């Protein structure tokens, strides 16, 4: 933790010595009716650029709250969250929206694509809020779709795509503003096992290219595709282990039956 104190919160330059995500004594309390819920009870962790982390834990363990704070959708009750050395907990709502737009990509369990909107337009969505001009928007959205292997589905509506394809569109949407971190909240929760592995294969490929990925999952199998497993229990980190030999999704896929089989 000594490094944290040496980092100035402003004008922080990302170097290998600065963790991408640095949280310190993070606490979050909710008022749920009469009772106060302590969702996070002092979480400290740091995540380096290029890491691939699986966050696990039972429901109610605080992992979703943690992800929401990491994603700048929520603010901690106390504690510090430094993103690239910048103290995010001090920012205004508007500044947080900007960070979500520029530095964070979200992938959800339920895909959360806009209905009756083409894959291309769904992918363009974050750029609507970063004032990217029309031509750049379309070009970059097509590039992002190509990255997830959906170049030929750009004009399809979500209803015309399979679950796996929809999730890939969501990943393209998360990538399109070239974020620092990809946050995925149970991205394979609604997918069959082969499609899940396909999605993990995309994540592994993106991670190999330097993208930091943090994903929440219930499934130990899925966590095996990551580099690091953090297990939450009762609002605290119970375990934080390196995955010794991560499974290679591309290899696993070869052993799995395709839908046609």
């Amino acid at each position: 933790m000594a490094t944290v104190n040496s980092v100035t919160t402003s004008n922080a330059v990302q170097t290998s010595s600065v963790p991408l995500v640095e949280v310190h004594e993070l606490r979050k309390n909710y008022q749920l009716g009469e009772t106060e819920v302590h969702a996070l009870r002092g979480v400290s962790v740091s995540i380096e650029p290029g890491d691939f982390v699986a966050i696990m834990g039972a429901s109610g363990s605080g992992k979703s709250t943690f992800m929401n704070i990491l994603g700048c959708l929520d603010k901690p009750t106390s504690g510090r969250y430094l993103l690239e050395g910048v103290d995010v907990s001090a920012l205004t709502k508007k500044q947080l929206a900007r960070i979500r737009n520029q530095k964070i990509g979200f992938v959800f369990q339920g895909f959360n694509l806009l209905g009756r909107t083409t894959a291309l337009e769904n992918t363009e969505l974050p750029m609507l809020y970063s004032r990217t001009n029309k031509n750049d928007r379309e070009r970059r959205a097509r590039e992002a779709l190509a990255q997830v292997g959906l170049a030929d589905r750009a004009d399809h509506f979500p209803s015309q795509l399979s679950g796996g394809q929809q999730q890939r569109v969501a990943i393209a949407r998360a990538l399109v503003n070239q974020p620092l971190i990809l946050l995925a909240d149970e991205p394979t929760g609604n997918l069959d096992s082969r499609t899940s592995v396909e999605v993990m294969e995309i994540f592994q490929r993106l991670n190999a290219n330097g993208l930091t990925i943090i994903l929440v999952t219930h499934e130990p199998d899925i966590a095996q595709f990551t580099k690091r497993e953090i297990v939450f229990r009762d609002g605290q980190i119970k375990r934080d282990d390196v995955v010794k030999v991560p499974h290679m999704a591309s290899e696993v896929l070869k052993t799995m039956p395709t839908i046609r089989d």
Partner: protein
Amino acid sequence: MDFSSAFVLALRALGRNKMRSSLTMLGLIIGVGAVIAVIGIGQGAASKAQEQLAAMGSNMLFVGSGSVNRYGLHVGSFQTKSLVLADARAIVRDCPSVSAAAPGTGTGQQVVYGNENWATQITGTEPQYFEVRNWPFASGTSFSEDDVTQAATVAVLGDTVRKYLFGSSNPIGETIRIGTLPFKVVGVLTPKGTSAGSNQDQDDVIIAPLTTVQKKLLGQEWLRWIMVSAVSRQASYVAQQQVESLLRDRHKIRSGDPDDFVVRNLADMADAAAEQGTVMTVLLTIVASIALLVGGIGIMNIMLVSVTERTREIGVRMAVGATEEDVRLQFLIEALVLGLIGGTIGVIFGVASSLAVSQGLGWPVRIPPYAIVVSTLFAITIALFFGFYPARRASQLNPIEALRYE
């Protein structure tokens, strides 16, 4: 988010629910349409009335013989026999605010020319009548002062009578028969149209010398009316007082007793007509505004439903970087577009229905440009006003809860 993409987004969002969007706009369409139709028809009627009264001469007074009060029973106007030619002469002589006066009487008669016949009104008067009424000749001339003194059987035709008796042939110099008497046609008047108040055809008339009508057609010495011209419109009220006191004096009416004549001031009638038109327009505009207001409430209702329905969408937008302002702008622009499209269709609808009314019922319609601009702006304002609350509500959503919303 920039304005043009927000605009495209709003059009799309509304396009996805065409039925709902059009129903939402319906309130505004009807409201704006009603405002425009009401103002168009109201203004048309008012300006027509003004025109007609101006054509009659706005500085004109109409003096009529009064109604008779027999045992407490009023039996119609033009009944007293006290209004006579000498009164008309005295009015011109003794009232300083009066420039001219034309005495007159009238009777309904059957008129015959060749094989054609026509029932019309015969007006007996003096030559200055045409000046007082500001009524030019289409052809021929008036009868003369001499014709009046000699009770000559000459006649001037109104345009309607000319049409029915002569069609396209020239009536000047021809002889027609009024009742049993032959009359020589000396002039034809230009058409004047229907009168402001009663919708009577003013051209369905034959005008002959006063004495001729009194003696040869009616056998009466008294007058039914005197048309009085004041020196100016402003002077017409003073002239009215002068005429009234003169006639009371001449008819020896004791103070406290009612007049045996009636004086009507056309400037008064013009003002009354204008005022009536204004009151009508204001009333109907209020009703139309209520329709607009109801339309606005409809917009709010539907937009609240839409915000609830799209909670997840709002959550997603916030997650990918939409600020509160972005979300608020998105919904405000949807409201704006509803107002704009609803207002525009409303204008088209209003103009079309006004035209239909003017075609179908023959009412004059005049739509002032301000009515179109104001009602469209009003529609947009209403839409924005009622769209603001739902838009604000959308922007205040918590993204985490919005994303979890089922």
